[in-house]
C-alpha cells in the first residue's frame, strides 16, 4: 500500500490534469493533508474490521484452568486404565506381555500409583476451583442439572428418531456434557475411596474389618470396568468418533470453539454472549 500522502498527491495531480488547472500552493498543501488524513482513517477502520472478524469467528469456551484440569485427569485415567486392566485380566496372554514389556508388575504398580496421585490431585484442585474461584462457581452453576436437561434429552431423542427437525437448544453445557461431568463424581468417589483402602491396606487393616477390603477390591475392579467402557464407548464417541466432530474435537485442549459450532451446539449460550456484548456496547455508546 502506498503512503497516504503520496496517494493524496497523486489524486490532486490527476484532478489538476483533468481540469487543466494549477492550484494555489498553500491550498494544495492543505488539501493534500486533509485527503491523507481521510485515507489513514479509512485504512485504520478496515484493519480493525478484519481483526474483529477474526475475533468473532472463535469463542473461548474453556479457560486454561479447566483445560489443565481435564488434561491432568485424562492422563491420570489413561495411566490407571493401562496399568489396571492387566491386573483385572491377569490370566490373559496380553497381560503377561504387558508386564514383560513394562518391566514387571512392580513397575506397573508404581505407575498405577502415579496415576492415582494425579486423580486425587485433580479432584482436590477441582473442589477448590468450584468452591473458591468466581469462574469455578459460575461453571459449577452451569453444570447443575435442571428440568430443561430432561426436556432437551426428550427433544433430542425425537430429533434423532426423525420425529422433529428441531434440535434441542443447548446452553453452555448440554445434558450429555452434564452427564459426563456428574458421572466423574460417582466414579471418583468409588475409585479414590476404594483405591486408598487398597493402597494403604496396612494402615487400614487396623481400622476396618476384612470384608471391607473385599468390598473395596470388588468395587474398585467393577467400577474401573464401568468407567473404562464409558470412556472408551461413550466419551470417545462424543469427543472423537461422532460424525459431527470426527476425528477429534480439540476444544477441551485449545479452549477455542468456532462461531459456527457455537451456534449449532450451544445456541442459547451464543445468544446470551451476543446479548451481553450488545448491552456492553450500548452502555459504552451512552458514555
Amino acid at each position, binding site marked *: 500500500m502506498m503512503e497516504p500522502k503520496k496517494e493524496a498527491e497523486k489524486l490532486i495531480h490527476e484532478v489538476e490534469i483533468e481540469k487543466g488547472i494549477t492550484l494555489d500552493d498553500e491550498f494544495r498543501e492543505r488539501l493534500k493533508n486533509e485527503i491523507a488524513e481521510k485515507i489513514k482513517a479509512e485504512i485504520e477502520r478496515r484493519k480493525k474490521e478484519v481483526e474483529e472478524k477474526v475475533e468473532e469467528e472463535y469463542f473461548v469456551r474453556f479457560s486454561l484452568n479447566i483445560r489443565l484440569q481435564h488434561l491432568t485427569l485424562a492422563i491420570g485415567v489413561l495411566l490407571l486404565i493401562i496399568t489396571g486392566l492387566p491386573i483385572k485380566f491377569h490370566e490373559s496372554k496380553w497381560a503377561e506381555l504387558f508386564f514383560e514389556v513394562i518391566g514387571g508388575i512392580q513397575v506397573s504398580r508404581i505407575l498405577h500409583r502415579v496415576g492415582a496421585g494425579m486423580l486425587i490431585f485433580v479432584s482436590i484442585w477441582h473442589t477448590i476451583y468450584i468452591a473458591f474461584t468466581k469462574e469455578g462457581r459460575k461453571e459449577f452453576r452451569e453444570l447443575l442439572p435442571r428440568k430443561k436437561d430432561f426436556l432437551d434429552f426428550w427433544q433430542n431423542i425425537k430429533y434423532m428418531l426423525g420425529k422433529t427437525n428441531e434440535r434441542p437448544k443447548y446452553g453452555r453445557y448440554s445434558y450429555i456434557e452434564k452427564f459426563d461431568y456428574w458421572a466423574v463424581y460417582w466414579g471418583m468417589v468409588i475409585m479414590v475411596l476404594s483405591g486408598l483402602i487398597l493402597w494403604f491396606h*496396612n*494402615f487400614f487393616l*487396623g481400622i476396618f474389618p476384612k470384608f471391607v477390603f473385599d*468390598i473395596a477390591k470388588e468395587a474398585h475392579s467393577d467400577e474401573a470396568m464401568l468407567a473404562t467402557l464409558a470412556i472408551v464407548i461413550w466419551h470417545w464417541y462424543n469427543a472423537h468418533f461422532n460424525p*459431527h466432530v470426527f476425528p477429534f474435537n480439540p476444544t477441551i485442549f485449545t479452549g477455542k470453539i468456532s462461531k459456527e459450532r457455537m451456534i449449532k451446539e450451544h445456541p442459547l449460550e451464543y445468544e446470551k454472549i451476543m446479548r451481553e456484548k450488545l448491552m456492553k456496547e450500548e452502555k459504552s455508546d451512552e458514555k
Partner: protein
Amino acid sequence: MRRFLYFAIFLFAVSQTSAQLRNERCFVCHGVKNFGIVEHGKFKSLYVSKEDFEASVHSKFACVSCHVDVRVIPHLTKPQRIHCLQCHFEGNVVGAPVTAKPEKYKESVHAKALAKGKNAPDCKDCHTVHYVRKPEDPNSSVYKTRIPELCGRCHETVKEEYYNSIHWAGIQKGELSSAVCSDCHREHDILPPEDPRSSLNPKNVVGTCDKCHSDVKLMKRVGVPVQNPEAYKESFHGIALKFGVVRAANCASCHEYHSVLPSRDPRSPIHPANLAKTCGKCHPRANENVAKGKFHVLPGERESGIVYYVYTFFKWFTLIVLIGLFTHIVLDLIGHIRRKRKKE
C-alpha cells in the same frame, strides 16, 4: 566278544534254573533270626527273612544274581556292596524295569548330600534291600501310609509336625488321597525350595497344593471348599506371586506346610483367634479385624455374602448404563445418516 556274551547268558540261565535250590542254601545261615557278625564292636544282623524276600519283586531271582561275587557257599569273604543300577540300567538283559527315577534322584538334595559324603539316603534306604515291593503293595516300605514313618526316620521333628496335621488325620481315616511327604516333596526329584524347579519353590507351591485341592470330586469327599485355589489366584497375593513377587503370600505362608490344620482347629494358624498373628507376619497392623470376613472369596458366588451383592449391583448397573449409552450412540448415528441422505 560274542562268544563271551553267549557264555554270560548261559551262566545266567543256569543260575536261574537252580535259583530255588541255591537260595535255600543261603537261607541255611541267613534265614536264622539271630545270625550275624560283630563288626567294629557292634552286632550286625545278617538275617534275611525268607518269607519277606519271597514276597518281594525280586523273589524269582537268586541271591547270587545280585551278590555276584559269591561263588562258593559258604562264602568266606564279605561280599562287595551291590547297587540297584547293577541291573536297573538301560539295555539290561535280566528284564529289570528301567525308569527315569534314578536320574531324577541324582538331581535331588539326597543324592547331592550323599555325593558330599554326608549321611543321606539312596535307593535302598527307602526301598529296603531284600524286601522291595511295588508301591501299591500295602506291605511295601514306600506304601503311601508308611511314607511319613519312612521319611521320619531321619526327619524326626518334621514327622511330629506332620502327625498333627489334617493330612495325616485323613490318611488315618482311610482317605488315601490325603497328602503324605512325597505328594508335596515329590518322590525321587526332591529339590530344595530355592530351586525354581522345586515343587516347594514359592512360584510352584500353589500348583503343588492345587493338584489335589482343585479336584472337585476329592474335595467334595473330604469336605474342603474346592474354589479356594481359584479364589487365591484371583487375589492380590495370587496375582503378585504369578508375576514374580515371591514375597507375596502363597498357600503355605498362612496354612503352614507340615502341620496344615483346618480353621476350626484352635492350633491352626488360620483359626480366627490366630489370624491376627498369621496376617501380622507380613501386615504389621493386622488385628482381630482380619477375622471379620470370609477368606478365599469369589465375588460371583452367593456364599461370598456382601461381596456377592456388590458384584451383582455393579454387574447390573454396568449393563444398564452401557445399554443406555450404546442405544444413545446408535440413535445418534442413525439420525445422522438419515439426515445426510435426505440432504443428498
